[in-house]
């Protein structure tokens, strides 16, 4: 019996680990899953949800921890020190499952109510611009929040570093070319994991930051565009994903004095924001549409 204990998690990690545990079910190993927070994705599979606990289940957790071998997956320090390039790589290192076995995308069985809700979302987005593109605004980190809570003031600004008119410019540009489904709080948009997976499955293309939308689009094999501007390294490579990394060819800045690691990362991050070339991003998105043969209004 093993306990897999997850700390410092987010929605992307929950999604990737859920896939790993679905694969692991077929093995003979008995296991429990203990997370630092609740994620509704684990309720998608009854056998998995029976094994799922959170830290606040204190007395249950105390009993479990004492009775089995514990494997810790810490997605801050341990992940950073592991030299893994993505959450999936780190999870594969810690959990003994074969990613090649049963690598089908997570399937959801949405209720008629969910199908109706998603159909309404598509109908609202339909401006006869050929393709449906799901879009999360620049540097909006869906990992930090539960899904798309409309009233959360933190989501009202995509980022303090990106001016509103820049975000609006990209939004308007995309709306003129495709049927855009934008996960901003400017629309009445509130979905849970089942709805989000079903929504992504029915879209033609996804534009996201490095968050759960990216994980879902990779898993569901939907062509996507990943904006890496806020992150330096970790993402899941896939032939269906175009990665936008405007800093990739920039030389490393060598400061005249010794800076801490955090300050150096911050410098890179701020340079990416300050030098954000929105025209270039627009061109790269159109190139990605062409590469994946996504029709759009020219």
């Amino acid at each position: 019996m093993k306990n897999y204990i997850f700390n410092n998690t987010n929605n992307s990690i929950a999604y990737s680990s859920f896939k790993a545990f679905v694969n692991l079910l077929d093995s003979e190993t008995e296991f429990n899953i203990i997370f630092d927070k609740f994620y509704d994705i684990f309720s998608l599979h009854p056998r998995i949800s029976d094994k799922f606990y959170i830290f606040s289940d204190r007395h249950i957790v105390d009993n479990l921890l004492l009775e089995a071998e514990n494997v810790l997956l810490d997605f801050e320090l341990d992940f950073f020190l592991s030299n893994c390039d993505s959450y999936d790589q780190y999870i594969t290192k810690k959990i003994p499952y074969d990613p090649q076995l049963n690598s089908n995308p997570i399937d959801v069985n949405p209720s008629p109510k969910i199908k109706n809700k998603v159909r309404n979302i598509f109908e609202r987005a339909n401006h006869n611009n050929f393709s449906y593109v799901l879009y999360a605004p620049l540097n909006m980190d869906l990992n930090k929040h539960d899904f798309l809570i409309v009233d959360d003031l933190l989501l009202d600004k995509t980022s303090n570093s990106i001016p509103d008119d820049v975000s609006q410019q990209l939004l308007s540009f995309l709306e003129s070319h495709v049927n855009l489904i934008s996960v901003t709080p400017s629309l009445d948009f509130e979905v849970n994991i089942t709805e989000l997976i079903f929504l992504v499955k029915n879209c033609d293309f996804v534009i996201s930051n490095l968050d759960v939308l990216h994980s879902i689009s990779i898993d569901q094999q939907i062509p996507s565009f990943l904006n890496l501007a806020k992150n330096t390294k970790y993402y899941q490579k896939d032939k269906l994903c175009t990665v936008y990394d405007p800093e990739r060819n920039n030389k490393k800045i060598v400061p005249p004095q010794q800076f801490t690691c955090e300050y150096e990362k911050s410098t890179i991050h701020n340079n990416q924001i300050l030098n954000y070339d929105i025209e270039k991003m627009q061109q790269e998105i159109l190139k990605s549409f062409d590469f994946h043969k996504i029709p759009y209004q020219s």
Partner: protein
Amino acid sequence: MQDIVLFDNNLTVLEFEKHSECKKSMLNVIQDISVKSVNTNAGHHTLVYQTAPGLQINNAFQDLLNSENLKAFCERKTQETVLGRDKKFVCNSMWATILPKFGQLSRHATEGVFHGIYFLHSAPDSGMITFYSKVEDSYFNKFGNIVKNEFNSNKQILNMPEGAIYLIPSHIDISTSTNMTDYDSVCVQFILDIAEK
């Protein structure tokens, strides 16, 4: 006795290999265009809708243009026409035509070298396509009132099978009969012309 082909008036029939995969996305694009864009039909039945040319740059039609069978046709014609090494066949115009009930295409030819018609959605019994030779009627009238075939007529009438691509020299006129069904027929027409490499 031997026959020698004097001029190329042949119809080449191809199958679009990815018809079933691509049909839905192409129809959706054409549907969206028909909602937003003006009808550029000039000269056919008023109920016929035609998109403006330019579909060859739309991503939904790239699989059609990159069809292996279409490439093989271009390679064969490159050899048959002894096309120079600095030249190649390109698609420089593509448009979609929707034939609703009572719609029909009037007799017309196109520019370019070859005219292609891809039957994207062809409802059963939705009509026939007629090909016309440039030879005057008076020549063939001499044969009298007999069963018509390729030797005694300046017209050929064929079905419009869904998923097929018909390719003819663009100087040959075509028309369609009236669509008497309740379902729209949709075809994608394109022109292959010669361009410098």
